């Protein structure tokens, strides 16, 4: 019933629908058929009220009056088959391996530059390249402990990687909270469907963090370093600290003495061996990076360089995950692993290269142009949707600073049935699985499905009006 009207919605167009086109959706389709739209709506309202009471909110910087907003939760789940999951899982593990090998190389011998696979200036001139990391050996060569890989599906249903997030990817708390919400609001929807569980992320992350501790720490003490309770992701920091059972600290709780890190407790100073930091490199240590940072810990980098503390993710991973480096990922994977990509890239034109720029300028109205350094969906121009003035502005920016941009064809993101204003309508979705790496890589069987709640919108970021769905990976 609920999906009958949806299936004939003209807005579905030629998009790949996660629910109708994917056989994995069958059991959920059958169960949804038994629900009325009113019942669905009623339960959605109850779930939203629960989120509000739980205070599961994020901060929107552009929205001064609404400091706490709920990340909208859509009650219709997105389902992935076991076979699709295998491709995602192996593809993500492959990418994380390549990223870690790349970073270890870039911060040691730089063979990949000498062999001409990557242009040296792209790496060495990169704002996120951190010379202070040179020749520092990390346990297991793990630079990227937590990786979030943004994946979309084209209109043939094929998976494509949109970007790798190797700095401080967020969103995993929603994966777990959404599942809990689903279990409370729709126990009948879940009944009889064998799902991979998502609630062991905390212990897995804690184990990985302990694996990257300095080898002499016998029982490593782990903390989560947050910018504080006004940060947009504070809820997630709290969530992860609780799931791991480790202290949630701020910079002011930590101090460095004799190149060792301690936290201030009621009983005095207590040693810290591993820091899962949710603060960007620039703010970590005012002695080395931004001197005006009040969020960081003076001396932290001394302790890190001395091998007395583990940091996750490592400093300097930002050089590997930006949109320019992304274009080289197929070559990077081939170079280090001798393999083809299990999860392919979207075709990408580098405007730093003459032919890439020329192609982009010639096809501006068909392409998506993205600044390489921005996150959160800011600064993107979507050619087919842009006005003449926006295209002209984009062209001017491209010519002024070509190396700052890449372009990609406009991919038709897949859609999923989504409850909006009391109706079930198609909305675009993407997917971010989370990989955790200590000695080896583990991928949480699930992930964050983000949904663009505005009709036709392709931008799913929470800061730009996106919501999220529970993602079911079938056994």
């Amino acid at each position, binding site marked *: 019933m609920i999906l009958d009207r949806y299936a004939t919605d003209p807005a579905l167009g030629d998009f790949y629908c996660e629910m109708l086109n994917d056989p994995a959706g069958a059991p959920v389709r059958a169960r949804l058929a038994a629900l009325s739209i009113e019942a669905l709506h009623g339960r959605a309202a109850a779930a939203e009220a629960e989120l509000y009471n*739980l*205070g599961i909110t994020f901060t929107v910087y552009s929205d001064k009056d609404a400091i706490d907003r709920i990340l909208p939760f859509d009650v219709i789940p997105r389902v992935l088959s076991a076979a699709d999951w295998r491709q995602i899982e192996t593809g993500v593990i492959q990418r994380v391996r390549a990223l870690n090998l790349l970073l270890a190389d870039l911060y040691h011998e730089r063979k990949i530059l000498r062999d001409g696979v990557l242009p040296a200036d792209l790496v060495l001139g990169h704002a996120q390249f951190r010379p202070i990391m040179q020749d520092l050996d990390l346990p297991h060569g793990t630079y990227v402990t937590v990786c979030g890989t943004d994946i979309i599906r084209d209109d043939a249903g094929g998976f494509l990687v949109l970007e790798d997030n190797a700095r401080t990817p967020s969103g995993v708390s929603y994966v777990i909270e959404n599942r809990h919400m689903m279990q409370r609001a729709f126990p009948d929807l879940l009944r009889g469907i064998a799902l991979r569980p998502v609630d062991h992320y905390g212990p897995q992350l804690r184990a990985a963090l302990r694996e990257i501790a300095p080898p002499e720490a016998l029982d490593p003490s782990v903390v989560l370093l947050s910018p504080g309770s006004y940060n947009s992701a504070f809820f997630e920091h*709290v969530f992860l600290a609780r799931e791991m059972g480790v202290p*949630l600290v701020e910079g002011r709780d930590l101090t460095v003495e004799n190149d060792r890190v301690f936290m201030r*407790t*009621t009983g005095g100073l207590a040693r810290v061996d591993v820091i899962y930091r949710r603060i960007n490199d620039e703010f970590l240590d005012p002695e080395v990076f931004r001197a005006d940072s009040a969020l960081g810990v003076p001396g932290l980098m001394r302790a890190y360089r001395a091998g007395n503390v583990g940091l996750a993710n490592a400093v300097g991973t930002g050089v590997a995950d930006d949109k320019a480096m992304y274009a080289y990922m197929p070559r990077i994977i081939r170079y280090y692993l001798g393999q083809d990509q299990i999860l392919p890239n979207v075709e990408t034109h580098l405007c730093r290269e003459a032919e890439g720029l020329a192609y982009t300028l010639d096809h501006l109205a068909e392409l998506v142009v993205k600044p390489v350094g921005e996150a959160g969906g800011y600064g993107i121009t979507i050619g087919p949707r842009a006005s003449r003035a926006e295209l002209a502005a984009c062209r001017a920016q491209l010519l002024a600073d070509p190396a700052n941009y890449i372009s990609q064809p406009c991919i038709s993101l897949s859609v999923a049935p989504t409850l909006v204003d009391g109706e079930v309508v198609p909305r675009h979705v993407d997917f971010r699985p989370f990989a955790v790496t200590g000695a080896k890589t583990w991928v949480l069987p699930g992930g964050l499905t983000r949904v663009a709640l505005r009709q036709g919108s392709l931008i799913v970021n929470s800061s730009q009006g996106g919501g999220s769905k529970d993602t079911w990976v079938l056994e």
Partner: protein
Amino acid sequence: MSDILLARYADALIWLARYVERVENLARILDVNETFARNTEGGQDWAPIVQLHSDEAAFAARHREATAETVLAFYVTDATNPSSIVSAVRAARENARMLRPLISTEMWVQLNMFHNRLSALSAADLAPGRLSPLFSEIKLACQTHTGITEGTFYRDQAWFFYQLGRYLERADQTTRLLDMKYHVLLPDPRDLGSPVDAGQWNVLLRSAAGYHAFRRIHATGMTPAQVAGFLLLNRRFPRSVYLCVREAEMLLSELRARYGLRGGTGAAEQLDGLRGLLSAVTIDEILVRGLHEFLDMIQLRLNLAAEDLAVGFFGYSAASPSAPSVPAQ
């Protein structure tokens, strides 16, 4: 993690408890003033509530006259007044938000809902007929918080700091209440010990939820000395200054012993001294020496104890950075 506690969290725990305790007390004071003080001389006097909180200047900056409307708006819904109920609940929630890794989800959810509810209050909610139910609701929310905390909060160091905050604040609030009411009701010290209008002393006792308990030990009659003695020195009444100081002292001493903490020596000495004093002195001796001076001395020593906790455990002596407003001193 179970055997250590971040200093910043210990501080926030004390403040969380203090703010909730403060909200409950403020709701009690406003409620009894609204409900029971009406029949004294046909009208209500709202100015003492402003004096009680040393808010004369802040109040005068906003309102010309201390009427029921202005004082209630100032102390219930005015988000720009740091001593208002809505501000204190907000401060409690901000501390709880920082403490989310430590406190139970149920504690957080209830405080969050309480905060959401109070933030939605408008002037219409302060209309005469709606006030008493509103104050009951606020008191109930505070007591719900206390109950949820008792039933769900893990009993490690964090619990001790939380409880310390609660008892220190409650002791302080009772001395303030007594100080204000005593002098308003009985401005002339020569009237000490004389029987007075029972209605007014009802108000005082009911502010502290102590009327029925008082009647258990004083079945008939009610003198100012008896009421003051009850609120200051009673061994079993949960809001008496003596009981609060005794609880705080026991909590601190157990905390330090069990977790081997070296800080808080000065606070322990203050509380030990206070308890000794309160168990030895009689209400008549206090009244002879001057009740106001005695209450001042207790407040001063409670402040010194809190100050020493801050220095000894949190590493600073200034007001808490996690507390948007400092207590009215």
